[in-house]
């Protein structure tokens, strides 16, 4: 890519908007996932009794819905990312591409 066009793209408000949006989504979701997983791991390491508590009258423990919940939440977070990306990132990317790829 031409250095001059690259400079232009870099200073384009749409590009800056895309980058700041993507970075904030990326960092927020990554931090949430890290908190969910390592929170769970620390719970397993430090407080097994908490996870062993019975949920109700039966034998099922709190640990089971929490464990399955980590799997389901992780999947949902990837869905959140796809939703935001489809809604916001693609449109901005397309705009930038149309503005500059003619010049390349």
């Amino acid at each position, binding site marked *: *890519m031409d*250095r001059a066009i*690259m400079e232009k*793209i*870099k200073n384009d408000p749409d*590009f800056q908007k*895309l*980058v700041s949006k*993507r970075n904030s*989504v*990326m960092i927020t*979701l*990554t931090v949430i*996932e890290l908190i*969910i*997983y*390592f929170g*769970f*791991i*620390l719970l*397993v*390491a*430090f407080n*097994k009794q908490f*996870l*062993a508590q019975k949920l109700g009258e*039966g*034998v*099922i*423990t709190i*640990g*089971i819905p929490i*464990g*399955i919940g*980590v*799997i*389901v939440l*992780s*999947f949902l*977070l*990837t*869905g959140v*990312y*796809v939703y935001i*990306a*489809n809604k916001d990132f*693609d449109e901005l*990317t397309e705009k*930038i*591409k149309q503005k*500059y*790829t003619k010049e*390349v």
Partner: protein
Amino acid sequence: MSKKGLIFWILSVILVGGAFLSNSMAADGKTVNPTAIAMFILFVVATLGITYWAAKRTRTAKDFYTAGGGITGFQNGLAIAGDYMSAASFLGIAGLVYTSGYDGLLYSIGFLVGWPIVMFLLSEPLRNLGKYTFADVTSFRLEQKRIRILAAIGSLSVVTFYLIAQMVGAGKLIQLLFGLPYTTAVIIVGALMITYVAFGGMLATTWIQIVKAVLLLGGASFMAFMVLIHFGFSFESLFSTATKVHAKGEAILAPGGLVSDPLNAISLGLALMFGTAGLPHILMRFFTVPNAKEARKSVFYATGFIGYFYILTFIIGFGAIALFVNHPEYFQNAKQIVVDGITKIVSATDETKNLIGDKKALVGGENMAAVLLAEAVGGPAFMGFISAVAFATILAVVAGLTLAGASTLSHDLYANVIAKEKDEQKEMKVSKIATFAIGILAIVLGIVFEKQNVAFMVGLAFAIAASVNFPILLLSIYWKGLTTKGAFWGGLAGLIVALVLIVISPTVWVDVFKNPEPIIKLKNPAIFSMLTTFVLTILISKLDNSERAKLDREGFEPQYVRAQTGIGAETAVKH
């Protein structure tokens, strides 16, 4: 190779395999499940058909490495799931749930949580910057030679350790399921994977993964469904039956001894989470889709399939606990007794010894829990089906690993380090030679390691992926300050720390070398090896004042624009 040559090769593989199969069955005299054999032959014929179809469409290097780049997000999601759901995660985790209950779930969770990380941090820039291998991304603005060598060392060690673990597991499993001698089984697996990869490249490998993923998800769903029907779709009823009959009682519904101290727990967690984001055969899949949008879609589907699959293995493991009580014939030296109205399986010689959940008591060991459950819920025909699916799983996973290893040798080492000029025909030739070389090496190592304890190798592969490939990939995409020198020495240091720490850990020092006490208590080195790579890479990069370092930093901005927008990225080819 010519068309005739390919047909000849495929026919010889079938004939030699068939001869071995019938020969060993006759010699062994054991009754082998006919559905298993029929299903297995059907799968092999179908996959060879796919290979033949793909071979005709694999003409260029791009076809070989990325299936032409035209796989859809959904297809790639299934293929990624196929690459990731190994026989170890199917039979191994179901077996772990059967013996330890909740602790099995801990592993599943660890294996899953890497996927959101791959999605958020890597999927789109990876697709926008890469061409054939992840080293294309790490060497985008850094010096080709040193960075490709580092990536090759990282990839080849991950592939080798993973492959040995899979080959040894495959040999033992096939020995058990089909009554074949271990060496024969390893040779058949090796010959088939060489055929798929050498002739069909990424296109054949992708479709074999997809077929296998559908079979595995279908088989596991049916099994879990049958278990749930048996308990009237009541988890309470399933779990309470399981706790009544299992030797460990209610302890199976809570975390046990598997994750003992926090340091070990976090280190293993880091290895599983970030190792997923550094596996070369998984990262390669991102170059098979046409753009970043399809790349992110594929991770979404893959995460869904893998998560669903792990939930199924949890149900399957508990189903095995709860239902095996009616099947004393699944156990060695066991009998069924009734105490206070509760049926139990106990040792024939010691009635106080409850065998349900015992590691060794099952016929064929704990890893057979899922296969035996298939028989319990679906009869011998379904057991045959699941056995064949397990075999298919192994074949597909080793094919993916072989392709990743061959790509590293031909694309990273040969084309970008050794060869003086670009020559695609030559690179293609090298990729085929590399496939044969890796396949033969895998067979030899599979035979050499037959009697060794290889349990640590998957953990080690993940630790290396997390400590060498992942940090360098992440920093190269997001940190302007990264220099060639920093990446090279930081990555190498991380690899050495990972290897040294695992050798002196309980998993190798005690379990393999049979020393009475480990030198360190840490089982997985990831926490220290990852830290080493990150700290050293950043430190050396910051201190790097070389001419190359200047170029490395200057190259960041054009790379960043392309990573974010995909302008200039590789596109798919139409056939």
